[in-house]
């Protein structure tokens, strides 16, 4: 039996204790379908060690995404609270925060507290409706802090409007962590009848912490955007290392396709500059390899770039920092301009699509307003327009499709990937819900690459739980390990998150559920391949 849960109120965010507001237990979690239904449930994440608890803030839910050190004394706490308030003022100023002021104010002011959004949130639902993960929990706290400390409403009005949240260090520390319990999937915003965007509020909160207080997850900032700006890629790949990878790709192509080709690199004046998430070169080289095979087979005029910034599509600034977002976007466009290509095409990386094609759109002025598009319509033209010789029977295994939030709900690219799969995968089946109603993989907004302390376990067992459920449901009639199954996730970060949930639940070993990108399936269906492109080897 479930123990009765303590009711969490908004005001609890300022409780002056080190004790987490909630600790999620196995029984709280949303149940999973077969084959995981009957397995003994385990608590979703381990507690931090005593040493970690002593040094880092974890009083939200016992998880630390930020490794936020505890202030040494009261003065330090007060200073930090003061800086938070200064940041909040900037967030609400149309001058300081012109880039997002409109949608932020809209979101803060239009909510009617109907909670339609709560049922849309995968984190809230997966965790067993934990109050603190409700999409409106952080927004409402922020709203009330604004009313009390920025708009300075009087005592009586504060009581009536419920603005009685105390802004102390525990509040700030918990809010910082809470900003990283939302994957910015914006499913809640899609549902909101009033157009209030709790995902955006989460992002703006992250931004306040980063741009004013220098607080951000290490994986996104130091080893993310800062490293990208210094070295060229957030994976740390340098231009020289990249060259080596291209040679390796050529070997792979020869082995699979039976043809030795020269992958075009830095070819001036090509039609297309193709940009991959550099994580693909490190973890899933078959994806850039498949792109090269397909583009070559279709006879496209295309190139990769080995210039610094030219071989990395990621832009983690999208998730937490406008300045880093702008810096990286400009660098990426500059590469394409110098190469004199006709357009940039983003490969299988969702946030790179949304970041460079959509969000950065209005800061790319004059000659920097450079043509940028998704690989999907192009791939659709190749597959459905008869530019490739394909045999769908080569893909005759169950395939389901994960919709990356960033280019589906947040960009409206919904159908091309489906038309491709219907054409080349006879056993294609949808997940439910799908398209713009899809659920996040749980790795969105940087979660897929964040692994501080117990955060990875939190992600695998909470934020990715809904996706795991969807995958199992999509394959529920073919769970037999003798049948190989493929989760198609056309986004590098989604792929990482899905790999981790399949691995930690033993779904490849026990039920042959495999994962990969979209273009690999296209390459696998090509008649001219010497060997099957998909090798079903777990990595």
């Amino acid at each position, binding site marked *: 039996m479930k123990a009765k849960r303590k009711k969490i109120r908004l005001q609890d965010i300022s409780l002056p204790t080190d004790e987490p507001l909630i600790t999620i237990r196995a029984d709280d979690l949303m149940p999973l379908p077969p084959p995981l239904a009957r397995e003994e449930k385990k608590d979703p994440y381990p507690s931090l060690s005593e040493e970690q608890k002593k040094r880092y803030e974890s009083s939200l839910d016992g998880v630390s995404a930020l490794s936020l050190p505890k202030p040494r004394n009261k003065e330090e706490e007060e200073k930090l609270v003061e800086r938070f308030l200064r940041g909040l003022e900037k967030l609400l100023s149309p001058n300081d925060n012109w880039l997002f002021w409109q949608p932020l104010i809209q979101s803060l002011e239009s909510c009617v507290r109907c909670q339609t959004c709560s049922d849309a949130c995968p984190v809230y639902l997966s965790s067993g409706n934990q109050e603190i993960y409700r999409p409106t929990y952080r927004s409402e706290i922020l709203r009330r802090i604004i009313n009390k400390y920025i708009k300075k409403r009087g005592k009586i009005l504060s009581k009536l409007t419920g603005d009685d949240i105390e802004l102390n260090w525990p509040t700030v520390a918990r809010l910082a962590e809470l900003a990283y319990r939302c994957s910015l999937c914006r499913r809640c915003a899609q549902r909101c009848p009033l157009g209030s965007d709790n995902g955006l509020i989460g992002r703006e909160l992250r931004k306040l912490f980063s741009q004013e207080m220098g607080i951000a997850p290490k994986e996104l900032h130091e080893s993310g955007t800062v490293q990208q700006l210094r070295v060229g890629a957030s994976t740390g790949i340098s231009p020289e290392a990249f060259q080596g990878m291209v040679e390796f790709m050529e070997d792979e192509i020869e082995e699979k396709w039976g043809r030795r080709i020269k992958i075009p690199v830095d070819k001036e004046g090509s039609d297309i500059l193709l940009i991959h998430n550099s994580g693909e070169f490190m973890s899933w080289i078959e994806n850039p390899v498949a792109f090269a095979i397909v583009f070559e087979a279709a006879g496209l005029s295309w190139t990769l770039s080995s210039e610094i910034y030219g071989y990395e599509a990621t832009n983690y600034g999208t998730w937490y920092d406008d300045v880093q977002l702008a810096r990286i976007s400009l660098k990426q466009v500059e590469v394409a301009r110098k190469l004199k290509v006709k357009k940039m095409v983003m490969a299988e990386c969702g946030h790179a699509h949304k970041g460079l094609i959509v969000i950065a*759109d209005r800061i790319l002025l004059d000659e920097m*307003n450079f043509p940028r*598009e998704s690989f999907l319509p192009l791939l659709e033209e190749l597959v459905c327009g008869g530019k490739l010789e394909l045999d769908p029977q080569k893909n005759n295994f169950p395939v389901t499709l994960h919709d990356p939030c960033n280019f589906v709900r947040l960009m409206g690219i919904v159908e091309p990937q489906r038309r491709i799969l219907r054409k080349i995968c006879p056993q294609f089946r949808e997940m439910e819900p799908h398209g713009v109603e899809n659920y996040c993989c749980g790795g969105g907004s940087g979660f897929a690459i964040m692994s501080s302390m117990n955060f990875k376990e939190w992600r695998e067992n909470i934020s990715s739980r809904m996706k795991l459920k969807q995958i199992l449901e999509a394959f529920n009639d073919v769970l037999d390990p003798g049948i190989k199954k493929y989760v198609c996730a056309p986004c590098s970060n989604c792929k990482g998150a899905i790999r981790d949930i399949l691995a930690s639940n033993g779904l490849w070993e026990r039920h042959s559920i495999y994962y990969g990108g979209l273009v690999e399936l296209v390459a696998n269906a090509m008649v001219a391949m010497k060997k099957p492109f998909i090798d079903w080897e777990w990595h």
Partner: protein
Amino acid sequence: MGGLILFIFYGSILFFILTTALRVKKCIDAPVHLHWELYKGSSIYESTEWWTKKEITFGEKLWSMVLDLLFLREFYHRNRRFWYPLYLFHTGLYLLILWHAWLFIRAVVADIETASIFGWVWGTFSTLLTFIGGMAILIMRMRDEELKVHYPPVHYVKWVFLLLTLIGGVYAVDLHFKSSIPSLLKYVREQVTFADFEHKLRPAPAPALHVLFASVWLIYLPFSHVYQLFFRYYHYLRWDDVPNRKGGEIEKRVREHLERPVTWSAPHIQSGKQWREVASEMQQPPILDSNR
């Protein structure tokens, strides 16, 4: 007393107009924001060279807004249970607002004595709808566990006050004016033509109370979320997709912002420089050697 009511009534109208104007100004002056969109389904990005495709037209947007506001489509699709009372309430309210507009116009443009019973039916029916809807919303807000979450206490007061306003209206029309549209129109004519000041200074309590209630609403309205809704349509927010075109309006407006200083103070930002500089300069030089 009468003077005070007059002052509050005309004052509230003035206040309403002024604050509305200020809010509209704030809305127009608001900076253009980055393209942060959500999509209901397929968008232009599904085509290659999407920048050569056309966006949806102003007419289509307007039509979509009208449908949203009239039928509360979003609630209909996403929270049906709550939609029923909301729909009753809003339909009643729209009709009631129209009815008031009709009263004001009818009172001055035609002979009052010939007004038919139709005016009374219209007003009563709309009031009833609004009342039932409002009551149902209040009850749901009090009983439904989800709808209670984060709902500020002051909003309960708002709903009670709204129901009282409706009752006050019915009291004035049906008891004070004895359900007679001609007497009601006569009263309205006095108000809008500024006639018979003497009479106004000693108003009958029932209509005066209703007018007072109405004034409170006029003062509240510019601060309510209703306005925010209109601004959403004005500002390329949600279900709207306006790419930045070379030489276009967006580019012009963004250019101004790029000249402004960045004020954020985290170490990686270089506070004080212009946005343009901060975005295009390196905080640390890139490493171009190969020993990494």
